[in-house]
């Protein structure tokens, strides 16, 4: 359903061209869970932003359901069924949780449906709907509301950027059960956490902007463990 063809992404840093993503070719099938992992700075979040249209690739193509969407903007992609959960949830002055949930689902929801989305992330709708989505909410609350918005969108392709970061006391088990519940969509998750990696049908290992490996959790995690051991022994990667 989604293909990335020869994606390259450069930025200018201190007057020098920096290559963030290098000839990335990936194909994502329907109704599967993909987890992108790799060291900090390997280009994971950049890749997710390129899929959503938040960033534009320097070269290459993004193809969604057979259509070249490389030049489409963010909302056009959203309206084709893409959904995106930010690593750092965005806050607003004045907009309430209910406003955002209604916008996410594209309609005014009744309390029952709002409850169903918020209860999946462990929040009681009655306590949150009228609260402004601002910095008075804790990082964990904001993160869970961010996930609830993805649930409300009922997208065909869900993109999650480090969904586990700052999830506070809410358990990993609940988080992974959300991914498993989204069976009728393709989910691409950027994560460092083994328990999230375990939910993947395929794990993509990115290193220095390149796809280093693609495969099942066990194969990729074995490679990651070996690399960690080599590092600990003072060897080279």
């Amino acid at each position, binding site marked *: 359903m989604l293909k990335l063809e020869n994606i390259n992404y450069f930025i200018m840093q201190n007057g020098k061209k920096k290559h963030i993503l290098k000839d990335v070719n990936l194909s994502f099938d329907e109704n599967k869970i993909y987890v992108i992992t790799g060291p900090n700075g390997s280009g994971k979040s950049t890749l997710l932003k390129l899929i*959503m249209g*938040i960033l534009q690739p320097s070269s290459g193509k993004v193809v969604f359901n057979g259509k070249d969407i490389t030049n489409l*903007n*963010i*909302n056009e992609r*959203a*309206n084709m069924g*893409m*959904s*995106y959960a*930010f690593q750092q949830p*965005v806050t*607003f*002055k*004045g*907009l*309430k949780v209910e*406003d*955002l949930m209604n*916008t*996410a689902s*594209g309609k005014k929801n009744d309390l029952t449906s709002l409850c169903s989305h918020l209860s999946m992330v462990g929040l009681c709708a009655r306590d949150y709907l009228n609260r*402004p989505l601002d910095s008075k909410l804790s990082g964990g609350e904001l993160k869970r509301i961010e996930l609830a*918005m993805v649930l409300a*969108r009922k997208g065909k392709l869900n993109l999650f950027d480090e969904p586990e970061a700052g999830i506070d006391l809410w358990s990993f088990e609940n988080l992974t059960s959300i991914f498993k519940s989204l069976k009728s969509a393709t989910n691409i998750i950027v994560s460092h956490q083994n328990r999230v990696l375990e939910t993947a049908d395929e794990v993509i290992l990115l290193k220095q902007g390149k796809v280093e490996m693609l495969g099942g959790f066990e194969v990729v995690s074995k490679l990651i463990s070996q690399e960690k051991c080599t590092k600990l022994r003072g060897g080279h990667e």
Partner: protein
Amino acid sequence: MNKIEQALLEKVSNLHKIPSGAFSLRSNGKVVKSSSTEDIEIVPKQDGSGVDVFVKPNVKNKSLHMPVIITMGGLKDIVYNSFYIGENADVTIIAGCGIHNSTCNSSQHDGVHTFHLEKGSKLKYIESHVGEGDGKGDKVLNPVTNIYLAENSFMEMETIQIEGVSSAIRKTFAQLTNDAKLIINEKLMTNKQEKAKTEFKVELLGENSSVEVVSRSVAKGKSYQEFKSNLIGQGVCFGKVECDGILLDHARIVSVPKIDAKNLNATLIHEATIGKIAGEELVKLMTLGLSKQEAEELIIKGFLFG
């Protein structure tokens, strides 16, 4: 009332018809209808410059509507109204002015409202300002609000002006005695070449007196806004002014804070943020399917009326 006047009345005071309670409607420079009740008495001033309103002590949950509408071009209307809120009363006053000007001549309304709240009384005061009409004549509104709060009284003031007013100078002055509390919420949006100036001066004279002023404004087109605040803390008091402005297009907002603590135990705060809509807010709403313009509109709606 014709259709234009009815529509204007609805925008200013949310009224679809003349209400049954205490009421005073001023149209094109004259009081055209006024009615007192047992609890709220409206008395014309002897010099004809406006009215005195007396709310009896201990009156609860009553309201007074005092809209002003102007549909004539070239009219300059000045009115002085005084409000005396009796001890322990708890009432709501809905005022405001709407100008519909379809002429080339300027129309102006300067409403000077003075409030005297007695001990333990509570007042919610809502004031809307509306300008409309396709004439080239300006729609000018210069409201002045003077507030005197006696011991343990409380006043909440909401002032709203959303586009259409060519020029406005809004001046508010307040003096608070012991345990008095004042909350002011200003919601302002200007567009095109409109100018809006706001000046607040609050003197916290009494022990444990407090004031909170929150101004949220949006400036679009080539409009200009100026926000001046002056908090003076004489006693053990708390004062906070929060001024948030969103800038769009080629607009300009100037914020001039002044806080003057004359007592060691006075706590005075001023916070001001002016800037364009944050890019990340737009991006977030676009990931939810809104166009950039729809995202901007939702952010502004939430910011002003959230």
